[in-house]
């Protein structure tokens, strides 16, 4: 009886006024983005497509490195694999290219299972180098496959490219919709995961894996879930990237720069937060738009920005902004609200 009454004095909430406002804002923004293809020109539309897939890639690397502690330098293995699967399925197996996108994701997820055997045996710098080596092996292996153009790569047949359409929607619109969907899914899935009970354990792993294990967290299972999930998502995104690029080669698809950009975005924005990759992708695109004319100086500026942010703001732009302000657009934190009188004297209200 007392326990029941005491329980009524306790409330635990995950939302806050700021998050309610941001939820409305996010809904409006999504509606705005869904309507974009009908009034935005092609150039800006393809820029948005690129923005979405970088956002998705960064969000997944954030989950992997920022939460599960798997600092992988080899995510381009999944990305390139996804690209090749979609080309192979569409041109050699006659699949509908849109269906082949999903197949690419599934193959990525399946490859992640044996991949985890390698990844989970290594830690820290060894893990980073190990994953990179695996990705390089993928590059070399695909350079040997003659039916996929070997080292010089392969172009998507015009007929296949034209088949990228659903009902009345053109290729551009379908690619835009798919990119938007993947970006939204990467955020929504991460958010739902982090709010769940498994997310509580994953956040604990982020803070201190050894302690997490000491309180009974099965860290291997959760890390495997994250590795396979991001393997699926990264391969799916890679498939989408190469479906819009129309040409794939091992050197480009398995380029470590893909992962470098993910790291840049996540570190600049704020690792281990859901807002960080969004902020980071915005900064990355702003820098790219305004500095692309500078040629190789552009990469030097990117490098300098990364170094300065890492030294001055190790928790990234969002992390530094949100620190001590207690602001969260995607609240995952559990807050205890205690009716102190009722808790201290459970019978009081009844009497």
């Amino acid at each position: 009886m007392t326990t029941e009454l005491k329980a009524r004095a306790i409330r635990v909430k995950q939302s806050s006024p700021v998050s309610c406002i941001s939820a409305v804002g996010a809904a409006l923004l999504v509606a705005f983005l869904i309507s974009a293809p009908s009034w935005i020109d092609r150039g800006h539309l393809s820029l948005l497509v690129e923005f979405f897939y970088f956002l998705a890639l960064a969000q997944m690397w954030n989950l992997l490195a920022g939460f599960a502690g798997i600092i992988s330098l080899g995510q381009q293995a999944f990305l390139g694999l996804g690209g090749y699967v979609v080309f192979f399925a569409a041109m050699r197996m006659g699949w509908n290219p849109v269906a082949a996108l999903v197949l690419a994701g599934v193959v990525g997820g399946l490859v992640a299972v044996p991949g985890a055997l390698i990844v989970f045996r290594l830690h820290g710098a060894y893990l980073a180098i190990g994953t990179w080596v695996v990705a390089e092996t993928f590059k070399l292996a695909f350079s040997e496959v003659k039916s996929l153009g070997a080292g010089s790569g392969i172009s998507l047949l015009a007929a296949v490219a034209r088949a990228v359409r659903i009902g009345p929607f053109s290729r551009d619109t379908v690619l835009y919709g798919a990119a938007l969907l993947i970006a939204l899914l990467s955020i929504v899935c991460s958010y739902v995961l982090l709010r769940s009970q498994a997310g509580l354990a994953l956040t604990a792993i982020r803070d201190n894996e050894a302690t997490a294990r000491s309180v009974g967290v099965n860290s291997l299972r959760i890390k495997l879930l994250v590795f396979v999930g991001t393997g699926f998502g990264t391969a799916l995104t890679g498939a989408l990237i190469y479906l819009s690029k129309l040409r794939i080669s091992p050197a480009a698809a398995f380029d470590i720069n893909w992962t470098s950009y993910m790291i840049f975005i996540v570190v600049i924005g704020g690792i281990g937060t859901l807002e960080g990759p969004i902020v980071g992708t915005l900064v990355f695109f702003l820098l790219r738009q305004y500095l692309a004319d500078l040629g190789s100086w552009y990469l030097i500026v990117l490098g300098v920005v990364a170094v300065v942010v890492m030294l001055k703001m190790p928790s990234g732009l969002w992390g530094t902004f949100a620190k001590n302000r207690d602001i969260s657009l995607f609240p995952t934190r559990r807050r205890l609200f205690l009716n102190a009188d009722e808790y201290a004297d459970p019978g009081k209200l009844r009497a």
Partner: protein
Amino acid sequence: MELLRIEDLSKSFGAIKVADGVNLTVKEGEALGIIGPNGAGKTSLFNLISGSLRPDSGSVHFIGKNITALSMENRCRAGMGRTFQIPRSFCQMTVLENCLVAATAGGRKSETQSYLRCAEILDQMRLIKKANVLAGNLSLLERKALEVARALSSSPRLLLLDEIAGGLTDAEAGELVKMIKLVHQGGTTILWIEHIVHALMAVATRLMVVNFGAMVMEGDPAEVMQSSLVKRIYMGMEAA
């Protein structure tokens, strides 16, 4: 009832024997204190029990089961809660969340089922007012109290304390000891390894002395402390 039984446990790092054929049992309801000079093998013994170290030989039995091969996380799920000598909180999570992780993962309860229990534990450990504060912002005493609160949240049958009073002022240690005494009186069995003897004496119902990885003496706390053997190896080394 016998909760924990350790049989002939040995562990060496090269030529150094940190555990040399240790035998001990912990009965339900008691508070076993383990003392010993620096380097006596206290923390190694603790790690062998909690599962972060594997023994070279010997076995660990917990609630009638041989758990020698069980991992740290599975030992927690089986009913062992542990603290760390240097507090290892989830710094970017709130105090409440620190406990919820243990309650859901180790205690295998649903999150909503755990709210009240965690709040009660925080109340008991005088942390309820800090429930929504990030663990990284706590003082040392509060972080030590959180170590205990987090361990208790997984509803352990046996609470393992590793030098929990270390690094605190006498007044702070006294406060923590009072809280731990209440935890013990609430029915939790405790195995407590400690360097600060007077903290331990307030709670322990039985005392064991280790030196060079082996058990030297055990018995009633007051009697053990009176023995000349303990005075020589323990106090003698401390004075030197």
